[in-house]
């Protein structure tokens, strides 16, 4: 069965993780995963696109000059001199999109990194120390049942828009989702005989958690990294679109926000279309990558 929803896949393929020998043959399992993954055109295509986006982000200064100065050619359609046209202040949209890649990836990577570390830690601690678990799952449930974007907006407006604010705010409301995903997996792992055996060997919960529980939930973590990062891209773009992005740095959301502010959003199609495609490419390829990874990891798909 191939499941296209990474969240559901994470929940339903729980048995797949346990079917693999966990402790000593991690290398063999991941090689087998790679063998299947390599043959999946969607997965490989997504990986190439993501790699290209990272390359563009890193090489932004080499590809385009930072679009700062206003020009006289206002709202020009795409041409050879301005590949993606110009905005309402005559700045080059190509440069804005290229530099925006850097900002969007930076926010996505840092916010999801924080969310993953916090979310995994909370989930694993909750699964291991059952007394914490009730409290943790209440907090997670409560946060997940609130409309998060309006809350992010309130906080970002209070602190004042900057890149750090956006990363912090997005991370602060992304970890509960990670906890939810990782916790369900961790709860099964904690009850396995080898964890009981480990308890006889050592009294250090830190040792058991880091050596035996975290590695066992690692595949779920990989999937949620991708899901969290792609949601972070959308949240950050949403904040920027409402005027809460960093006003000193170009981001895809800011291009859309300025297009909306200047009233050129619907007439100058390139101002909306190009950043929109950029967001779609990033989020879609991240999602497809996680699906392909999930499918490749599932031993039932390896028999081919």
């Amino acid at each position: 069965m191939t499941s296209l929803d990474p969240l559901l896949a994470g929940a339903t393929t729980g048995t797949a993780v346990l079917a693999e020998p966990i402790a000593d043959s991690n290398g063999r399992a991941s090689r087998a995963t790679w063998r299947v993954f390599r043959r999946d055109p969607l997965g490989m295509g997504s990986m190439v696109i993501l790699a290209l986006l990272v390359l563009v982000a890193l090489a932004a200064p080499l590809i385009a000059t930072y679009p700062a100065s206003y020009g006289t050619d206002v709202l020009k359609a795409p041409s050879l001199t301005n590949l993606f046209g110009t905005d309402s202040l005559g700045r080059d949209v190509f440069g804005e999109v290229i530099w925006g890649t850097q900002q969007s990836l930076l926010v996505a990577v840092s916010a999801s990194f924080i969310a993953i570390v916090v979310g995994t830690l909370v989930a694993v601690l909750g699964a291991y120390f059952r007394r914490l678990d009730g409290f943790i799952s209440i907090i997670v449930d409560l946060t997940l049942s609130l409309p998060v974007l309006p809350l992010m907006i309130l906080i970002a407006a209070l602190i004042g828009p900057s890149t750090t604010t956006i990363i912090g705010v997005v991370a602060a409301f992304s970890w509960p989702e990670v906890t939810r995903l990782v916790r369900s997996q961790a709860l099964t792992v904690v009850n396995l005989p080898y964890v009981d055996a480990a308890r006889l060997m050592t009294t250090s919960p830190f040792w058991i958690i880091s050596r035996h529980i975290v590695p066992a939930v690692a595949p779920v973590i990989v999937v949620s990294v991708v899901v969290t990062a792609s949601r972070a891209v959308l949240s950050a773009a949403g904040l920027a679109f409402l005027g809460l992005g960093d006003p000193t740095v170009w981001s895809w959301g800011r291009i859309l926000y300025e297009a909306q502010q200047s009233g050129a959003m619907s007439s100058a199609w390139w101002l909306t279309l190009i950043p929109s495609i950029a967001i779609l490419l990033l989020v879609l390829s991240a999602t497809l990558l996680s699906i392909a990874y999930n499918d490749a990891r599932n031993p039932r798909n390896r028999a081919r």
Partner: protein
Amino acid sequence: MSRLSFILRRLGRSVFTIWFAVTVTFLLLRLLPGDPALAIASPNMTDDARAALLTQYGLDKPLIAQYGIYLFELVRGNFGTSFTQSIPVMNVLLQRLPWTLLLTFTALLLTVLVGIPLGVLAASKKGRFIDKFVQIVGVTGQSIFVPSIGVLLLFVFGLNLRWLPIGGAYDTNAYGMAWYGSVISHLILPAVSLMLIQLGSYVLTMRSTLIEALGEDYVTLARANGLPYRRILWKHALRNALLPTTTLIGLQLGFLVGGAVLTETVFAYPGIGRGIYEAVTQLDFPVLQGAFLLLAVTVVVANMLTDIVYGFLDPRVKTS
């Protein structure tokens, strides 16, 4: 007895969730750098004037007393006064709430009406082209930035084809039945934008739970008894597959409201989301706070109602 206690327990959980949202908001407002007094006071105020302002807003009292006052005022429906319009936040928001409710409810209805049949279609043709196509559309829909799809629809159906209005919620020159007509025509584009981004999760959940249900023994038994496939699919398997899809509504409500904020901004739709957009530009914190709390209450109440209705429909829910 069990039905009543189910409803009461569900009610208690909702009150608890709302209390949590209120407390988080209070702590944010008091502990974050955007000091409410600083936000109203100009930086060149004298210390005396500032102190007077703090007393006026009760900010000189200890935190716990401020918290008590805050809760008391919220229960009375006092969300504070808008910085920019100098009228109670509650008045600003209550005017806007019906539009947001109309938009989100229509979008949800559309999503369910389109999503469930699509999911059934994909599941019944598992592995065929139509299944792959529906899945790809679903995943792509989830990856689109809401304003992107909004502007695209606006551009095609509003500006180029001129079939539908490009913004607002109604025609100011229309009266009577024509007014209701204008409300519907203004609703279509924003509601469809919201539907398109929501659709994916419903279709994919419906598909995978239905495929699972079709593998159950009772389906095999029904087929062995010679029941037509169509009847098994729609009558037997679908009923059991609907539970996860219904719980999905609850999980997605917060996300739907977030999407509505962005959609309303694109379409200049006079709901709470557009209000948030305007309040952000003017740094009107009381409005932002009130908007979040009101949306949180809406989501929590809607979620509770879905659960209770479901509890009546599915006898298994009560016992668990």
